[in-house]
Every structure is written in structure tokens, then in C-alpha cells.
């Protein structure tokens, strides 16, 4: 006797095939939905910004007059902010990752630290803003300056850099470490000469992605008290500043008063998107160039 009844199989065949096609269509729709939203968003932003982005817009200072207003201050503010965030996250993030992966004994303490780093990544950014306000702006009495904003942002993206660096370090094959230890190298020599060179692409990718998150963040900077309107350009770590996403935020709220502010906001969004796009492309390039040489 046969267990598989051919006529039964034939009978169910068409309904099975139908379910198969329905599944495919559903998943395609899910994908298209996200894509559609993105297209609408980009279309709106670009059509509103049309005619507003020119050299003057990039090179002028802030002004209440929409025709004369520019975002040079916000661009420079963003650059100064990154000048603080990049080295701080790189040093603290990679240092933490090296300690956790290479030195820390795999035990309860290590698991506890690990869990907290993952949790830290999930803490809302506004909470980091409050932390920055308490410690850097008021505690150290820095005021709402580049340094205070940079430290706050660095703390915010630190977990991302730590986790990305840990993954990059973990991906370095054990046999390379063994080869180095086998020749009498110390742990630090092994880390410096073998582990880090192999992990650097992954680490850099993580750092760039973290930076592009920091560039787009607004909430923490609102909390630490970046002024809504600031004309002087920042040119030092202790200067007051503003950044692109904040400028977008303030122009968007004020567009109720002056219609053109909406166009200025859209134009700034385009510039910001462009910067983020370039940074993410660099991250992808690095990842592809150095991918898996072992």
C-alpha cells in the first residue's frame, strides 16, 4: 500500500500553488509600501526645495529674511560637532570593544556590561540630552557649546560603535591570534599588529554609521539648549552653534508664520540627506573593499 495518494495530491495541488502566489504578492506589497512612502517623501522634499539650493544658500549666514537666509552656520556647526564626536567615540568605543573582546574574562561581569551596552543603545536620545544638560552644560558649566553638544552626541552613539567594533574584532579568525601568540607575541602586540588591522574596516564602517546618526539627531541638542536663531559662525570648541537638523526643526515650526521657511527647511533636508548618503556610501565602500580576505 502507498501512503501518498496521487489523486489527493493532485486535488490539493492548485490550492497549494495559489497560497504560494498569495504569499509572494503579500511580501511584495509590504516592500512596495515602504518604497512608496520613501518616494513620496523624497518627491515632496525635492519639489519644495527646488530653486532654493544655490551657492548663496550654502554660504550665507542665518537671516529672518528667507531670500537672504543661508545655512553656513549650521553646516559649520555640524562639522565642529563631528570633530568632537568622531575622536571621542572612536577612542572610547574601540577601547571598550577591545577590552570586552580581548581582555575581559567571559563571566558574569562581562555579560552584565554587555547587556547594559545593548540596553544603552535602546535609550531614547532625549534622555541622553538630559544627561548632557546635567553633566556638561550645567555640571561642568560649559553652556550650550560645541564641546558639550559633542560629548552628549558621543555618548548617544557610543553603544553603536562599541557593538560594531566588537563584532569586527570577533570576526577576526582565532587562528590569526594563535599564529601571533605562537611566536611569543604579547596580547597587546597581537591586538595592535594582527587583530586591529583586520578589524579596522568593520570598525570604520560602524564609526561612520554612528556619525551619520549623530549628524541627523535633533532631540538631545534641543534639550541642551541650542538657540533657535544664531547668526555668528562657530569657530571653536567653546562657541555656541547650531546644526542642520535643528535648523530644519526651527524653520518647520516657524513656517506657520513665514511660508518660505518651509522651502528653506526642505532645502536643508536635501543637503543633509546628501551628506548622509555620501557618508553611508563611504561605509559601504570600505566594507566591500576589505571584505573577507581570510
Amino acid at each position, binding site marked *: 500500500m502507498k501512503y501518498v495518494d496521487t489523486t489527493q495530491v493532485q486535488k490539493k495541488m492548485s490550492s497549494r500553488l495559489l497560497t504560494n502566489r498569495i504569499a509572494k504578492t503579500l511580501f511584495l506589497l509590504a516592500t512596495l509600501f515602504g518604497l512608496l512612502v520613501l518616494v513620496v517623501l523624497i518627491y515632496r522634499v525635492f519639489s519644495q526645495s527646488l530653486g532654493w539650493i544655490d551657492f548663496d544658500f550654502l554660504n550665507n549666514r542665518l537671516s529672518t529674511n528667507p531670500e537672504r537666509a543661508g545655512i553656513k552656520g549650521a553646516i559649520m556647526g555640524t562639522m565642529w560637532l563631528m570633530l568632537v564626536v568622531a575622536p571621542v567615540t572612536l577612542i572610547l568605543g574601540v577601547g571598550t570593544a577591545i577590552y570586552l573582546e580581548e581582555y575581559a574574562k567571559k563571566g558574569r561581569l562581562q555579560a552584565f556590561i554587555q547587556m547594559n551596552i545593548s540596553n544603552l543603545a535602546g535609550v531614547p536620545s532625549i534622555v541622553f540630552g538630559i544627561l548632557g544638560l546635567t553633566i556638561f552644560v550645567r555640571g561642568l558649566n560649559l553652556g550650550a557649546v560645541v564641546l558639550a553638544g559633542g560629548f552628549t552626541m558621543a555618548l548617544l552613539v557610543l553603544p553603536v560603535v562599541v557593538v560594531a567594533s566588537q563584532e569586527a574584532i570577533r570576526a577576526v579568525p582565532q*587562528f590569526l*591570534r*594563535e599564529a601571533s*601568540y*605562537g*611566536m611569543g*607575541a604579547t596580547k597587546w602586540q597581537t591586538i595592535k*599588529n594582527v587583530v586591529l588591522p583586520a578589524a579596522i574596516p568593520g570598525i570604520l564602517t560602524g564609526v561612520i554609521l554612528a556619525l551619520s546618526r549623530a549628524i541627523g539627531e535633533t532631540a538631545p541638542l534641543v534639550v541642551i539648549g541650542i538657540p533657535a536663531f544664531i547668526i555668528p559662525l562657530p569657530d571653536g570648541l567653546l562657541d555656541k552653534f547650531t546644526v542642520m537638523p535643528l535648523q530644519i526643526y526651527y524653520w518647520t515650526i516657524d513656517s506657520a508664520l513665514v511660508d518660505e521657511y518651509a522651502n528653506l527647511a526642505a532645502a536643508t533636508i536635501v543637503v543633509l540627506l546628501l551628506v548622509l548618503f555620501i557618508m553611508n556610501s563611504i561605509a559601504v565602500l570600505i566594507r566591500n573593499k576589505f571584505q573577507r*580576505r581570510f
Partner: protein
Amino acid sequence: MVVSTYSENKTAGNSSNNMGVNKELKKKSVYHTKDLNLWYGTDHALKNINLEINEREVTAIIGPSGCGKSTFIKTLNRMVELIPVVKISGDILYRERSILDKSYKVEDLRTNVGMVFQKPNPFPKSIYENIAYGPKIHGIRNKKVLDEIVEKSLRGAAIWDEVKDRLNENAYGLSGGQQQRLCIARCLAIEPDVILMDEPTSALDPISTLKVEQLVQELKKDYSIIIVTHNMQQAARISDKTAFFLNGEVIEFDDTNKIFSTPSDQRTEDYITGRFG
């Protein structure tokens, strides 16, 4: 159970190499393990290992998978400590000095005892940098000295002629067999006393294997070599002494000729005649 046959050899003088009786008498031991036990957690991986390994000989470690032969060789340069749950008792003397002693730094030990691994593991660097790595970590910076070490080591590993025109190319461009000889050259660059080889040919094709085996024969003039191998013919071809491991114990340790012709333990005979393993 475990008998070091060292004293017997001294008088017998019929070791497979062709050295005279007088030289045989002078042969010094390089490693001496005393009641060596090792646990991975609760798993008793090495049981009362008592071996005396001579200098300038090739000592082969054979046995079925999981018998502890790799563990044993990794204990000799304390590489086994990279696994956190390892516990060791007993003693290992290297040149009369206990390597398990706190005052013996692993970095120091591993400078004297080089290792070649199962899978070729060159660094993702140039051929030159691979060889110069060891000397550099030991503080040699002089470019001329490094150049000489690189050439000498590559010649020593019989790969100089194949790579001399491409020293600055990435080592990953070499074939598997070349990579393994490069790893042997890298090991020679720290001018070790002992070379540990953990199944160095198991990932290689027959021709590369032959080259590595010939190389081992050359190297034994200057180095003491301990080689783990899965391949019994290989042990018979290249070693002077053979230790047969089974379930973490040394069943028999003797001249290779004797092990493969008239083993004294039934289990050794069963293994080398292919009845198990």
C-alpha cells in the same frame, strides 16, 4: 603503563637515524613531562603523561581523533591556556625548567618553541611582513637584519626560490602548500629551539605534503621537532620516535622502527594495522 624508553635507547643506539653510538649518548632531552594531567572542565583529556623528548629528533604523536594528541602538543607551548576552562596538574620541563612555573613567561617560552598549525594561517600581510613579524615583535627594527632573516628563513623552509620575486605580495596569493611552508619559515624566523607541528599536512595535497616531509627531515639537523599526525605512514617515514596516544593516555612510546615493526602493546598493533581509528 607509561614507560619512557629514553634510557633503553641510550644503550641500544639503534635509533632510525644514522648517528653513531657516541653521539647517541650525548643526546639531551628537550622536553620532559611528569605525571601530566589536563582537564577541559570535567573532561579528563590527558592522563599521567610521562614522556621524555630528545633534541634534534623528530618525535611523532599518533593516535585516533580525540585521543589528546593535539591537546598534548598545545600544552608544550601553553597554547592550550587560550581555552579558559583548562586545568593542568603535574609538570612539564623544557630544558630542565618547569614551564608551568609562574615565573616562566609564555612569551619567553613561545620564542623558544615555535608552532606550525593544522591549517596554514599566514597573516593577511605581504610575504615579507609575515616572516618579519616575529623578529619585529622581539624588537628587531634594522631593515638590513630583517632582510637577512627573511631570506634565511625562506631558504630554510625551501620556499625562497618560489617567492623571492614577490616578497611584497599578499601571502594569501600563495597555494595552500606554499602557505604552510611560509608558516614554517615564519616559525624559523624567531630562531626557535623546538618546532611543534600540529598535523601540518592534513590540509595539503600529496605533493605539498611530500615537500613538507622533506623539509622536516632537513630541519631536524638544527631543531627538535614534535609532530602530531593523523597519517601513520607519515609518522613511519619521517620520525625517529613515535608516541601512540589513546583516550588521553600514552600507550606506547618508542623508536619509530620498533613501534611499526614489533609494537609491545596489542592496542598499538591494532591501531597501526588499521583495525580501529
